[in-house]
């Protein structure tokens, strides 16, 4: 994972800038006025109870959920005007795998890599990075274990060379070795200039990883965050 520097916009403005952002799921305000600023190369941990709005926040930052009021600028794009152009610049690891069950691991990774406009070489190196080369690569995704699917989704994400990584519970379903790989990928991506926002229930592990911690509750960012934050910069 060595993104070429030119693909990353250098600039001083934050990668994510939210002010009073409201997002509705049907009539339910899943985000009820979130304030959030994230600078480039930061690793931000979102925490909060189930239903606090973590997943919706990540999806909204990816341009998948419309922002119905407030300010929302991601990677310099105003999400209230344009949610399309930010999408291919972010990478989202969601609860769903985003994989075709009937296709093999290699076919999936290659398809999503080419779809994102990257080269096949990126797909191969991403698979190698996640231990998916060799025997596993020809197996249909439908036959994989949960952890192996997670790795495949991660491989697709790595190959995309996203500027902003949005990871929803990246540690879930992985063994210890897999979690180490995730942490390593995140650190490498940040070192290479990407920005990472992740949510996790593995707080011990995630707090070590994160530069900043944001606590969500009731669809807003709560103020008590910051504990254990900057001391842990790797």
């Amino acid at each position, binding site marked *: 994972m060595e993104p070429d520097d030119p693909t990353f916009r250098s600039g001083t403005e934050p990668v994510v800038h939210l002010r009073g952002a*409201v997002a*509705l799921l*049907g*009539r*339910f*305000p*899943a985000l*009820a*006025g979130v304030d959030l600023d994230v600078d480039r190369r930061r690793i931000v941990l979102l925490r*909060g*109870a189930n*239903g*606090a709005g973590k997943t919706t926040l990540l999806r909204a930052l990816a341009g998948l959920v*419309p922002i119905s009021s407030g300010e929302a600028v991601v990677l310099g794009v105003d999400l209230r005007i344009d949610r399309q152009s930010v999408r291919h610049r972010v990478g989202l690891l969601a609860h769903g795998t985003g994989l075709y069950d009937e296709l093999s691991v290699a076919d999936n990774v290659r398809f999503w890599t080419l779809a994102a406009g990257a080269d096949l070489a990126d797909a191969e190196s991403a698979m190698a990075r996640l231990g998916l080369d060799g025997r596993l690569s020809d197996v249909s995704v439908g036959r994989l274990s949960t952890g192996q699917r997670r790795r495949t989704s991660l491989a697709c994400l790595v190959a995309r060379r996203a500027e902003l990584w949005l990871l929803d519970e990246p540690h879930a379903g992985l063994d210890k070795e897999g979690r180490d790989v995730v942490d390593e990928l995140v650190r490498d991506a940040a070192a290479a200039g990407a920005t990472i926002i992740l949510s996790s229930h593995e707080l011990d592990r995630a707090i070590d990883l994160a530069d900043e911690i944001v606590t*969500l*509750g*009731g*669809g*807003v960012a*709560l103020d008590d965050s910051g504990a254990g934050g900057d001391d842990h910069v790797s």
Partner: protein
Amino acid sequence: MTTETAGQFETSDSGPTSTGSRSTLILGIVTLLALGVLVLFGLILSPADENQGDAVRIMYVHVPSATLSYVGCFLTAIGSVVFLWRKSRWWDLVAYASAEVAALFTAFTLVTGMLWGRPTWGVFWVWDARLTSEAMLMLLLLGYLAVRGIAADYQVRAKRAAIVGLLLVPNVFIVRQSVQWWRTLHQTPTLSLAGAEIQGLMLFSLFTGFVAMTLVFVWMVIHRFRVAWLEEQVDAEGLDTAIAERRAEGVVS
């Protein structure tokens, strides 16, 4: 529209609350008068046709219904296009309202056509080109209304319905063309005024039919639009409270 009526609504909860306004009330009264004139001329004053007999009287409601069903369909397509182009909810609701009213008039056209066919052809249904096209229009409109009825987010429903609505017009053209070619292979008497000596009082009755039913159409679209508008408002109502409640969740936990 006047301040007088607006004040009336503000002051009392028990006062008249409806989709009516002064202008639609006047429109309604004019419409009822026109319908009365239509009954008078269509059923009483106008003579029976030499060929069709009294069945020609069905034409005075059938032909305007058929025309208005296509008008409604075009209005839906226009509303859909403007909605997609300008993101205007107003036009989206115009499309919705006119599609529903168009479906009603299509139903009138089919039923009156069948009731005309029984004494004329001896059967309720023949595969007459116009009647078949109208039946296909009904199915297309039912498809559109099915999309409107799906339980989904406003944006999802409106965008999908708009695409279906905008395709109504090319679909109607292609269906009509194909059905016409299909039926010209087997010549049958078609459901139309051809053959009737249409003049004098009969012509005036048909004209009255057009006027009265167009007024009904306009009145219905306006009121249906307002109902749809109110539904939207009820949906949007309480958003502020919902946001406040949502925030409170976070403080408690």
